[in-house]
């Protein structure tokens, strides 16, 4: 397994957010982490990259327990994280934003260069010298992903990559993510949008109130409207 999360629990102060969350992602596989707003999707991803201080449980990445590692060490092992609120460096140009994410090539993971990323996201190619704060929301979303890919990760956590994007951009985003998958990247995609998730994912996990409610293949989930309606319908 590429990534195995076992019995993950997380708290913010007095409030427990995650309860006994366990799932696994295989090499080159895409897992959809589905759930409503506030279900604990973002907290799960943030816990994996070490940004939730108060957490317990085991997180195994490529055979190594990373649960106690500081955030930058996790990033250096090739585990990329694309936050949902984009967090572009608004005062840096597009090229500089990519530079921040740059890491040496990594054996066993696809290698990315700015040129290759501009092919993946053609919109960005025209704005290399534009400030991160002066590009559209969709372009910022692409830049966030491109910035993470500059670290040549072998697994990427994508937090709601389709959120707040125009339908046309969502299509482009799906195509780009599929291209990343074809390069051999393992993916965990948190989503509320089932239609988007099923374009990309092989397996799905549904999280609700901080607990895993369902785990199975995407195809099984699609064949099972009751589960969908219970946990995902708005």
């Amino acid at each position, binding site marked *: 397994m590429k990534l195995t999360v076992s019995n993950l629990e997380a708290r913010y102060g007095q409030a427990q957010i995650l309860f006994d969350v366990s799932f696994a992602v295989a090499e080159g596989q895409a897992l959809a982490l589905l759930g409503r707003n506030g279900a604990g999707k973002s907290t799960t991803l943030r816990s994996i990259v070490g940004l939730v201080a*108060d957490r317990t449980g085991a997180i195994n990445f490529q055979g190594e327990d990373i*649960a106690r590692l500081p955030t930058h060490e996790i990033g250096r092992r090739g585990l990329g994280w694309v936050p949902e609120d984009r967090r572009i460096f608004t005062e*840096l140009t597009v090229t500089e934003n990519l530079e921040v994410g740059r890491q040496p090539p990594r054996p066993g993971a696809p290698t990315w260069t700015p040129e290759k990323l501009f092919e993946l996201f053609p919109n960005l190619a025209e704005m290399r010298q534009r400030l991160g704060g002066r590009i559209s929301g969709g372009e910022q979303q692409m830049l966030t992903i491109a910035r993470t890919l500059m670290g040549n990760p072998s697994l990427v956590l994508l937090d709601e990559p389709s959120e707040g994007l125009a339908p046309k951009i969502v299509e482009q985003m799906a195509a780009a993510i599929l291209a990343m998958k074809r390069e051999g990247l393992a993916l965990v995609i948190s989503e509320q949008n089932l239609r988007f998730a099923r374009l990309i994912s092989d397996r799905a996990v549904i999280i609700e109130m901080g607990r895993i409610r369902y785990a199975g293949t995407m195809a099984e989930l699609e064949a099972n409207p009751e589960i969908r309606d219970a946990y995902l319908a708005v």
Partner: protein
Amino acid sequence: MEFFVVQFLTGLASASSLFLAASGLSIIFGVTRILNFAHGAFYMLGAYLAVTLTGQWSGPLGFWGAILVAALAVAVFGVITEILLLRRIYHVPELFQLLGTFGLTLILQDVVVLIWGPEDLIGPRAPGLEGAVEILGQSVPTYDLFLIVCGPVVLAALWLLFHRTRWGVLVRAATQDRDMVAALGVNQKWLFTSVFALGVFLAGLGGALQLPRDSANHMMDLSIIVEVFVVVVIGGLGSVPGAFLAAVIVSELNAFGILVLPKISIVIVFLVMAAVLVVRPWGLLGRQEGAPRQAPGATIHPWRPLRPPQQIAVAGMLVLAACLPFFAGNYALNVATEILIFVLFAQSLQLMMTVGGLVSFGHAAYFGLGAYGVALAARSLDLPMMPAVFAGPLLALLGAFVFGWFTVRLVGVYFAMLTLAFAQIVWSIAFQWVEVTGGDNGILGVWPASAVGGATRFYWLTFVVAVAGVICLRILTFSPFGYALRAVRDSQLRAEAIGIDRLRVQWTAFMIAGTFAGTAGALFAYLKGSVFPDYLAIPYSVDALVMVLLGGIETVSGAVVGAVVYKALAIWLVSQTEFSKLILGAVIVGLVVLAPEGIVGYLSKLARRIKWPLASKRDPERPAGSSEKIMRPDKEKESAVGFALKPSPAGAGSGGVEAGSQENSPPRMTKAEP
């Protein structure tokens, strides 16, 4: 005309070393969010090291080598400081970092005197640049011209460093979002250390380069740090070009102010800073700051009024304190009276800082206004004590009324700096308006009426006033007004949305705090029998700040304990040792590292842990699971409830820096008043 040109050039030359120090502070603040009070001490260290090294090495190579080595040595010292001290306190509230670096400044002041002695030291002239150049018939020192070139060269070098190197790009990225940078695989620890080293290097270089123009003395750290703060604030925190622009403005104002208006020369930069901040609340080239990383005073253990057992304990202590005159001599009573005055002064600041989240760097203004109010009424108007004593608080209230209106419009560091500016303005009025205030000689012969004269009676008077004042301030804290004040502190937008007028509430708090500080100042005038401009000056403001932090910024009345401990320790140390600042500084640094919650905060944490009967037992009362319902994990509430605001245990899982800051970095949602 020629003369003005030369004066202009002199101003530019001064601007260079000021810019070096200020840019260093600005860079450090931008990335680490640490307002490095010790920056002036590093500047001073650079100057002293340069004195020693230039004395050892001769020739042009020796001189310039000495300057460079001095700056590098300061940078190495800065790195050691960062690793040993600052790394331990990145996760604590910003103010504690300020307090820790303030402690370091105290230590270095005495260390410098220990090593180099108390006399001013004059460095050599720069070889090759000793002479002067004729410009428009006036001679300008060659070294000045060299300094004039230095400033822009360093500015350009910094620009290239930040825009053309990977390190610079990472630093700029970390300035905006440290957690994101960490998630991209960058070790912030070393990024912070290198930034700190660069900033401190610039300070050391500024100090060393200034040497051929000015002597090195052990007071220069405080004078430069104030100027540097002013420059950085006028230019905009974190902006290097802003620091350059502001350094030029400030230096030129100094150069010309002294010609045009010698009377207000001291205050002119503060007037300009006040004007800039009123028009541009984030400085000339600064950008709007996000919400402070950790709002002071926000706590996950809600405050409560004292419970009966605690009340009994406090009452017992008060009875003991009231009986002091029966077993203490006159000297001890005088010391005790002074401590009580500072208890009231510090508690008034605590209302603003803790309850209001308004950190004032110039609270001494109101203390001093209180003292001057009394002194002027008693001496100039010849009023007896009974009406005169009310002139103090009244004058302080008036000052707070005027200045408060301006300052509450700003937030965070800018608020702090504007309060400082107003305090400096008041100070220079007291200092310069000799006809009324007596200037530096002060106003003498302010004695209490015979009914409260004598050590014992005056002690009792002070005791009654201080205790009543502290009780009043506590009552206010738990009154609806106190709740409103806490509401705007914790979430300005929400508080305004439910109809609280932020400006009015904070302005009122400012005036209340000012009035109580003025009351303390009025008593102080009668205790000392005289009033001096010092009462309004920065050291008194810093004392009050330290007392609050020492007691515990997250407590209601920690300042009381902080004031007693700090004042008693300071007075005792001065009588015991020549190096009181060294010890006091070490105590402060130790406290910041070991108990960043302050004395009272630490004790109540301890009490909560062992469930001491006097502690407010809260946990058993809370129904299980209730907190979950209150604190739903959606993002918005996460940031507003503020449960992550308590300093997280050092290095929990991810090295402290990363750990504590993410949950409460909602700069996107918290919009401050434009």
